């Protein structure tokens, strides 16, 4: 059987490492029932834990900070969550694969500059209005696709590819910035973006639409279903005939497209194109996704879970600000939260001979 298996596996481009087939498989079956019992308890925590945490946080801040539980403040939290939500919907698809995307800041910076230079601005004669969204989304998707192709075709691990791509995106943004910040002069467009509908800002509504699109893609398209499957067991998905490389590359491209929409909101809200608008978004998005239950190990969670995470991050930010805690401390806290959440979620998988790089 092993002789027959070889060429088949090689033709799909996927080898199977000894730890999937050898002693480990046996160890796992021996403990299978115990593992399953733990997994169901774990699944329950993963499913309801983040929502419970969000509710507890809201209750705590409503008790400690008197300005927290007002309608205006809560609408404010939703408005401030808009950009991060859209970006997090994007990164969720990459995290579902079990890969990571550290290029968000670079891609968003490049998109901010492209967009700000295409609408009516103080630097050139362009006046694309809302149509500027189309080239911006194409730029974002192209960056994402480049990430995906480099990871799948050249076999460079995604954290490495995307660290490099982040620098490339930032470099492109700096070239376009060129020491002269373009101000957005298209007043109707800015007024549209900042304006309110039923008391909610349009940014919030755009975010809700993007989340809905994300949920539909995740649940009802091949891309979304395969992304989850690939994150759970890439080699098995490949052996069942799915073109893994294509769907992985597409997931990265989709993520890039979502980042670009977040970038459009970012520069319209800010009113200027600046290569430093997107600083710290990437880590906040990873924190949000992980805290919400979209684990870095892949295959688990989804868009809605990640959005619960975004709300946790933003409620925490807002509440701590109302309690006069320094923003710098929040970044430090995010760092601890991410590592803590990952440790807690993967603790049951620990094994003496497990190889983690």
């Amino acid at each position, binding site marked *: 059987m092993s002789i027959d298996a070889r060429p088949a596996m090689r033709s799909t481009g996927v080898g199977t490492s000894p730890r999937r087939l050898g002693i480990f498989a046996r160890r796992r079956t021996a403990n299978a029932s115990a593992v399953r019992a733990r997994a169901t308890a774990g699944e329950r925590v993963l499913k309801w834990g983040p929502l419970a945490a969000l509710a507890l946080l809201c209750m705590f801040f409503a008790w400690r900070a008197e300005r927290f539980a007002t309608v205006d403040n809560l609408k404010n939290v939703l408005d401030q969550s808009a950009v991060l939500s859209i970006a997090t919907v994007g990164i969720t698809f990459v995290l579902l694969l079990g890969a990571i995307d550290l290029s968000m800041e670079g891609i968003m910076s490049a998109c901010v500059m492209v967009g700000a230079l295409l609408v009516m601005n103080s630097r050139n004669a362009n006046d694309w209005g809302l149509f500027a969204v189309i080239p911006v989304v194409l730029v974002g998707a192209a960056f994402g696709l480049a990430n995906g192709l480099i990871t799948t075709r050249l076999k460079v691990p995604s954290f490495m590819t995307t660290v490099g791509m982040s620098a490339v995106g930032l470099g492109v943004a700096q*070239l376009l910035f060129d020491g002269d910040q373009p101000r957005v002069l298209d007043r109707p467009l800015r007024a549209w973006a900042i304006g309110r509908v039923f008391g909610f800002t349009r940014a919030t509504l755009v975010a809700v639409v993007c989340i809905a699109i994300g949920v539909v893609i995740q649940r009802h398209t091949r891309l979304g279903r395969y992304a989850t499957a690939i994150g759970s067991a890439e080699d098995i998905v490949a052996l069942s005939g799915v073109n893994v490389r294509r769907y992985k590359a597409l997931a990265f491209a989709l993520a890039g497209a979502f980042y670009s929409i977040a970038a459009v909101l970012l520069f319209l809200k800010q009113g200027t194109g600046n290569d430093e608008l997107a600083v710290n978004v990437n880590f906040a998005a990873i924190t949000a996704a992980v805290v919400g239950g979209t684990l870095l190990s892949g295959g688990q969670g989804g868009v809605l879970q990640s959005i619960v995470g975004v709300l946790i991050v933003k409620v925490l930010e807002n509440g701590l600000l109302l309690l006069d805690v320094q923003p710098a401390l929040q*970044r430090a806290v995010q760092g601890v939260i991410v590592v803590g959440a990952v440790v807690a979620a993967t603790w049951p998988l620990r094994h003496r001979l497990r190889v983690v790089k």
Partner: protein
Amino acid sequence: MTATATVVVPPKQRRELDALRRFAPVLVLVGLVIGLTLKRSDFLSIGQQQQLVESAAPLLVFATGMTVVVMCGGIDLSIAAFAGFASLWFARFVPHLGIGALVAVMLLGAAIGTVQGVIHVKAQIPSFVVTLGGLALWAGLALLQDKPSILIASNSSVLALDGRLVGVPRLAILAGSLALVTGLLMWATPVGRWVRAVGSNETAAYLSGVPVVATRIAAFAFCTMCAALAGCMVAIDQTNGSPGTGRTQLLPTVAAVVVGGTAITGGVGGVGRTVVGVLIVKVLGTGLSIIGIGQKWENILYGALVIVAAALTIDGSKLTVVK
């Protein structure tokens, strides 16, 4: 089921790949230097070289530490953020401890690296996750203090390190000796074999008695200690410690390591290669300003360099699933 379907690279091809990794960077460096000398005849002058070596010193220290971690098959994304954090504490310690502040901060670095290593190894989560969390933590903590930077008094004894010894910058001598000692340790002691074994095949290393856990943790401790030293060096050079110290150095460091020929997949590489990589990165940076496109392209260059070099040096035969 004992036969597994790992793609086997024929020995000849593997040898060629290794030769490429070993000698191509040197050829690239020689080519760059020749090209730049043709473009500008004073490129090889002593003044230019002193400047180059001086600016390369912190990068060499960062990259020496990173090399050991990458050879184990891991990565440390927290070094640049930690260097900023370390430079602050260095500037804070100097009035009390003098040159001892350097030792204190390096010990702090080793301790924190150990913690990051223990979390990575014991909780078995990928090193880039632990160190990404570390990046946010140290960057956040460094920004917590009230002042934007802490000055090192101009009569302070540590600033003597900034001078030159028979024309060679003292900091560069310090960086060079660190690289030399590390290189010797990796070449002549079992430590080097352990690191290579862990990076090549961790399971096999464990089964043959290599202290896998200790090696990995020590690698991360060493890497963070190097980051602390690099942060102190930049602080001495700029006579202050600030959160932004070394902030931009993560990408050049990774670039230097992979460009030198250390594979990001682990097991293959060495400190000597990293020295070549650091020189390539620095000469390229100088070259950019010589041909006049300058700093604006720096980010794009480093980004592309990291991706291309990582792709060229990766041992595809070892990778089954690339995440």
